[in-house]
Each structure stands twice: as structure tokens, then as C-alpha cells.
């Protein structure tokens, strides 16, 4: 049997999407390197899971749609007993370590490829996002750590807010199904066009 080693190069979900209105009102960055998994508490194990997450990850899961993070790992609550967990620079590897840590208390499924995540910041991020997400993004309402599973321009999306960037502008991340990345991008970039768009870390 011929043993061929074909090199498989991964491809990012938002790769090669065009920017039609360059500028600096809205800054976007693809978060391709994130490891992502869905974590669903097993029946009756919610409390045990909370405890375990505190022990293993140093993360305090707060009730409701909140993002709780520590050490490059974040638990993003998307439903009762349901989280999206993101791990910086972990890619598909994150599912194994999560399963090792939590598998007895939660069902864990890799979503590193299923979710395409975009970071949206810049002085006009809110103005652009309010055109596609039906969520009140007022700084006092949608605070740092807030999460919303919702719909953006007919595309299911999960939105969360991170800490502000050094210049004091709000920073959001938004996750959509990978197959919808292009459609979502068309809606977002059109909404942001009047403010100008810059892509960070492309290439």
C-alpha cells in the first residue's frame, strides 16, 4: 500500500472575505485559533459541574447569560446548563482536555470548527452591531461579560462583550455557524461600511 502523507492545511471560516469600505470605525479580527466546545451539564449535575469548573479552571460560573473567564479559558453561558467554552490557541485540542476534566458531569462536543468567531471593536462597533443584533448594547446594560444568544440578520449568533480595549472602546465577539460566515459577513460589513472597516491580523 502506497503510504502517501498528504499535508492538510486548515482553512479559516472568514478567510478571504472582502472589505469594501476601508476605514477605522469598526475593527474586526477573526478568532480562528480559538478552541471551542459545547458543554452541557448532565442531568442533576449542574452544581457539581460549577464546583469542578471552579476547582479545575479557577472560573466562577455565574448564573444567567454571562461569560466567565480565567487563564485563557472562558465559559460562555448560552442556555440553562449549557455553555460554549473557548480556549485560547487550543483549536481542536480543547475538547480532549475538557472531556478529561468534566466529562463525567457534562456532555462535551467539539465546536472549534462549527463556530466561526469574529472580534468586533473600534469606536463605532456598537453603531454597526445595533443594525444586526436585536440586543440592547448600551454600556450599562450589556456590560463586560454579558452574553446573548440571538439572531443577527437572519443568522443565529452568540454575542458576548469582553473588557474594553486600551482606548476605552467596547470589544465584542460574535460567533455564528461556520457555513453562514460569508452571509453574516455581508450583513456586518454592510452595516459597518458607513464607519469604515479594518481587519486586524489578517494574513
Amino acid at each position: 500500500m502506497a503510504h502517501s502523507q498528504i499535508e492538510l492545511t486548515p482553512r479559516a471560516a472568514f478567510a478571504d472575505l472582502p472589505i469594501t469600505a476601508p476605514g477605522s470605525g469598526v475593527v474586526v479580527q477573526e478568532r480562528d485559533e480559538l478552541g471551542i466546545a459545547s458543554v452541557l451539564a448532565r442531568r442533576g449535575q449542574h452544581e457539581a459541574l460549577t464546583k469542578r469548573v471552579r476547582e479545575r479552571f479557577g472560573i466562577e460560573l455565574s448564573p444567567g447569560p454571562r461569560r466567565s473567564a480565567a487563564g485563557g479559558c472562558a465559559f460562555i453561558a448560552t442556555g440553562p446548563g449549557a455553555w460554549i467554552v473557548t480556549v485560547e490557541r487550543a483549536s481542536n485540542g480543547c475538547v480532549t482536555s475538557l472531556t478529561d476534566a468534566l466529562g463525567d458531569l457534562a456532555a462535551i462536543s467539539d465546536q472549534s470548527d462549527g463556530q466561526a468567531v469574529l472580534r468586533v471593536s473600534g469606536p463605532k462597533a456598537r453603531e454597526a452591531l445595533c443594525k444586526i443584533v436585536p440586543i440592547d448594547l448600551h454600556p450599562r446594560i450589556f456590560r463586560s461579560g454579558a452574553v446573548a444568544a440571538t439572531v443577527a440578520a437572519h443568522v443565529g449568533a452568540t454575542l458576548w462583550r469582553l473588557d474594553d480595549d486600551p482606548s476605552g472602546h467596547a470589544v465584542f465577539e460574535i460567533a455564528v455557524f461556520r457555513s453562514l460566515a460569508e452571509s453574516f459577513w455581508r450583513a456586518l460589513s454592510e452595516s459597518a461600511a458607513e464607519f469604515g472597516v479594518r481587519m486586524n491580523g489578517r494574513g
Partner: protein
Amino acid sequence: MRIQCPFCGERDSSEFTYLGDATVRRPDPSAPEQYFEAVYLRDNPAGRHEELWYHGFGCRSWLRVTRDTRTHEIFTVEMYNDATTETNQEAARA
């Protein structure tokens, strides 16, 4: 119409899908004669109606919503399978 999802907070009804009467229970398989009623017959009241909404574009929870079918006013929303998170729409709004 806005539904106060116990998990997500208040959202537009377009994030949800609707499945009608929430008082319908799947009958016991040993009582087949009840299936016809459960699947087909409805009170269809003009007034208070307990109904199922699924937050499909949100937290994926099935909710039990009490709503007036004449005014669309929503009285209560709760998780279908978790009576402890009962939220009073009025209280939340005030």
C-alpha cells in the same frame, strides 16, 4: 411581541417558535384513546392561554408562556421543565 425568557431576558418573539397549548401532555401509551384528543382537540380560548414557545434563536429552552390571545399581553413566562425559575413578566418590567 416580547417574551421575557427566564434565561436570556426579554427578546422579540421572532426568536422563538410556537407550538400551541402547553397544557397538552403526551398521554400514557396504555391509553391510546386519549391520543386523538391530545394531538387534535384544543380549547383555543379567547383570553388566557398557556402555550409553548421554543427559544430556538436563543437558549434553546422550551418555555411555558401565559398570554392573552385577545390582547397579546403576556402574564408569565417560565422554563417548561424548571418551575423554580418562574419569572413574572410584570415584575421584571417594573
